[in-house]
């Protein structure tokens, strides 16, 4: 299991679904040994990153758009209950049915019952993060319902019995040769088989997927989706996609079920306008999104006859109670933060152990799931705090700030909201040694005399310092040299040269000094 959890077999494709990582550093280190994976990721992220930068640079009012996007989302979050009630009214008035799901289990149960009620045992799916988050496909499978992914990359992931590793490009960790192997070996089990002589040319791969999926679009009577936005004033759902498969799923079936996080509501169409500019440029670097499907309830003789909206909480209301962490709910899932993140680029998406990889995952998962597990407690540390994510985020989520906030939660504990009640968290275990070091360091740093003594001792023994450290220090010296400790600290030099005679101020130290004043 351990060696294959990032799923890069030379020849595909036995069931190699990645297991849950133990913690982020271990998973990232394993990913780092997979050079094919790293090359795929590096190439893909840098390409999208550069394209995004160009697309954004075209707009002179990008900072204003970004500020507007953040402000609208903040406003929505402050009065989320009002907006959701308005949305429910509008959806219901337009012929849809609204269901409220407090958590993943409830959402899965609602969707399962809705599908059962149609008498069908299969459904086609539009790529959706929310259904990924709640593990809907697995829940449906357990109830005898097969959900077919129709987004090309999701199809690759599903056929390969794999997990998505990117929000926008779920199969970013796969290269063309692997995709060909997966198609050749697996498509037949799920429906129309791929031609035996399939090559890894993109056009051939796309054609094989088209034929395979077309069969499903024409047969399916139930469609399942998420939504990028929900417009409260009219009850309109919005799905933004690039392939057109989504539109097939949203228009052809008789019954449409959409599972949508409650934070996806926007008050008005005017607000939507801002996001339809922010999202395409940030995610696919397109000026305008290719397939934007919008629907309002049901319409006689046009599209699905039944529409169900499942509003998903699953921890979101609890996140809302955290004044620093709640900005994560502004996220419009553009994936720009993943594409600029140097850590994501080297760790891959599976290391984050949830539907949400990269910087957004590092701040969202520990809030939605808590920091109880070793993996979830390691996520806020999966960052050098370089700030590249914050810089590109179209809704200005200060990801480094939230990361530090969550680190505090891990090591110091504190109050959080769980299922609506305030709970006092204890500091996470496994940080005792670090806590002792931090405390000792703070104590010493708060006593300059102690620091001086330590510096002097270090300076005297500097010839004896080892090049490789034991214990936690080994993590540094395994790959990097240590700086040499100087014979004299700055403090000591200052005392010796400045304080001795002149009593501070302008006494001369080393070097020349030509005053030009």
């Amino acid at each position: 299991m351990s060696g294959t959890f990032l799923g890069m077999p030379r020849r595909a494709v036995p069931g190699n679904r990645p297991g849950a990582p133990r913690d982020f550093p271990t998973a990232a280190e394993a990913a780092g040994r997979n050079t094919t994976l790293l090359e795929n990721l590096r190439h893909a992220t840098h390409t999208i990153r550069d394209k995004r930068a160009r697309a954004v640079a075209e707009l002179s009012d990008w900072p204003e758009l970004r500020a507007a996007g953040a402000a609208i989302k903040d406003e929505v979050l402050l009065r989320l209950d009002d907006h959701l009630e308005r949305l429910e009214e509008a959806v219901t008035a337009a012929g849809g049915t609204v269901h409220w799901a407090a958590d993943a289990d409830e959402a899965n149960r609602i969707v399962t019952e809705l599908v059962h009620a149609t008498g069908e045992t299969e459904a086609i799916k539009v790529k959706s993060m929310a259904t990924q988050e709640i593990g809907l496909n697995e829940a449906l499978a357990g109830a005898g319902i097969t959900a077919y992914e129709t987004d090309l990359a999701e199809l690759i992931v599903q056929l390969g019995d794999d997990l998505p590793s990117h929000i926008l490009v779920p199969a970013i960790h796969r290269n063309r040769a692997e995709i060909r192997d997966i198609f050749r070996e697996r498509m037949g089990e799920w429906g129309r088989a791929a031609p035996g002589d399939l090559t890894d040319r993109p056009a051939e791969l796309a054609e094989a997927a088209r034929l395979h999926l077309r069969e499903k679009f024409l047969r399916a009577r139930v469609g399942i989706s998420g939504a990028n936005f929900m417009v409260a004033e009219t009850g309109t759902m919005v799905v933004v996609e690039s392939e057109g498969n989504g539109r097939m799923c949203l228009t052809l079936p008789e019954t449409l079920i959409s599972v949508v996080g409650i934070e996806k509501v926007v008050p008005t169409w005017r607000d939507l306008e801002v996001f339809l500019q922010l999202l395409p440029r940030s995610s696919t670097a397109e000026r305008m999104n290719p397939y934007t499907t919008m629907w309002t309830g049901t319409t006689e003789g046009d599209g699905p006859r039944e529409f169900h909206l499942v509003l998903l909480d699953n921890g979101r209301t609890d996140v809302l109670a955290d004044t620093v962490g709640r900005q994560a709910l502004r996220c419009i899932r553009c994936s720009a933060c993943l594409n600029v993140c140097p850590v994501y680029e080297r760790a891959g998406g599976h290391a984050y152990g949830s539907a949400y990889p990269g910087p957004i995952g590092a701040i969202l998962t520990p809030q939605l799931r808590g920091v109880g597990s070793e993996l979830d407690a390691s996520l806020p540390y999966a960052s050098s705090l370089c700030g590249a994510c914050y810089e590109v985020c179209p809704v200005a989520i200060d990801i480094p700030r939230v990361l530090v906030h969550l680190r505090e939660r891990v090591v110091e504990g504190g109050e959080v909201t769980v299922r609506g009640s305030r709970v006092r968290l204890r500091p996470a275990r496994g940080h005792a040694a670090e806590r002792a070091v931090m405390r000792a360091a703070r104590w010493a740093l708060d006593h300059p005399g102690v620091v001086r003594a330590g510096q002097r001792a270090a300076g005297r023994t500097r010839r004896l310092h080892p090049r490789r450290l034991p214990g936690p220090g080994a993590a540094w010296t395994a790959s990097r040299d240590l700086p040499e400790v100087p014979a004299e600290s700055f403090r000591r030099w200052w005392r010796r040269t400045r304080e001795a005679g002149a009593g501070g101020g302008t006494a001369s130290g080393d070097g020349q000094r030509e005053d030009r004043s």
Partner: protein
Amino acid sequence: MAERMRVGLFITCVNDTLYPDTGRAVVTLLERLGVEVGFPEAQSCCGQPQFNTGYRSETEPLVRRYAEAFAGYDHIVTPSGSCAAMVRDHHPGFAVPGAADAARRTLELTEFLVDVLGVTDVGAYYPHTVTYHPTCHGLRALGLGDRPRRLLERVRGLELVELPGAEECCGFGGTFAVKNAAVSTSMGRDKARAVVSTGASAVCTVDNSCLMHIGGVLRRAGSPVRPVHLAEILASTGESAGATGHGTGTRGAIR
């Protein structure tokens, strides 16, 4: 202008202990520019390691110490982008008297030179090929912009060469460097490779923490490229930089 200003040097714990040459360079440079530099000995660490790792309660005494140590200075100048960012962005969030005020008076060295003193030509001479890595805190948190570059461009003898992928993080990240050592090292190696590809003989930043990381990777790889703090370049004049090639740094140790 420079005569009556009270300027306090915030050396930072890393520079104090490991890179005193940088501190001496700042003093040399500022005094050459006519600034009277004070060094309040009560100063310590900005609390960044504790704060960024999540130990907020261990940070507070250091925030308090900072505000008290630097009370009364018009400007607090520090040769560290990340410590300046820590003070400016995070100290005001602590309920400590004077913290917000001290934060407002804190400037990274290049900000002080360019914005307060209004100089870009500091009379330096450094006859070497140098590449500049804009550290993340300098670039994104402080928004130093082209200040370091403008200063470097006016150094006589210095040839500035572009660093490919300059804006990418070097991978240091404080405790990140040991908590996620594999990813940190991989980032460091890519940065080091980019540095070497420029053909420069020195890589310079406004932060010795990043340089410790980049330099540590370079040295482990046996590279002769030398990490140099910007202050040390700006402090050099003909006399100090000429013979030895790179001044007299403890980091010299080219193997």
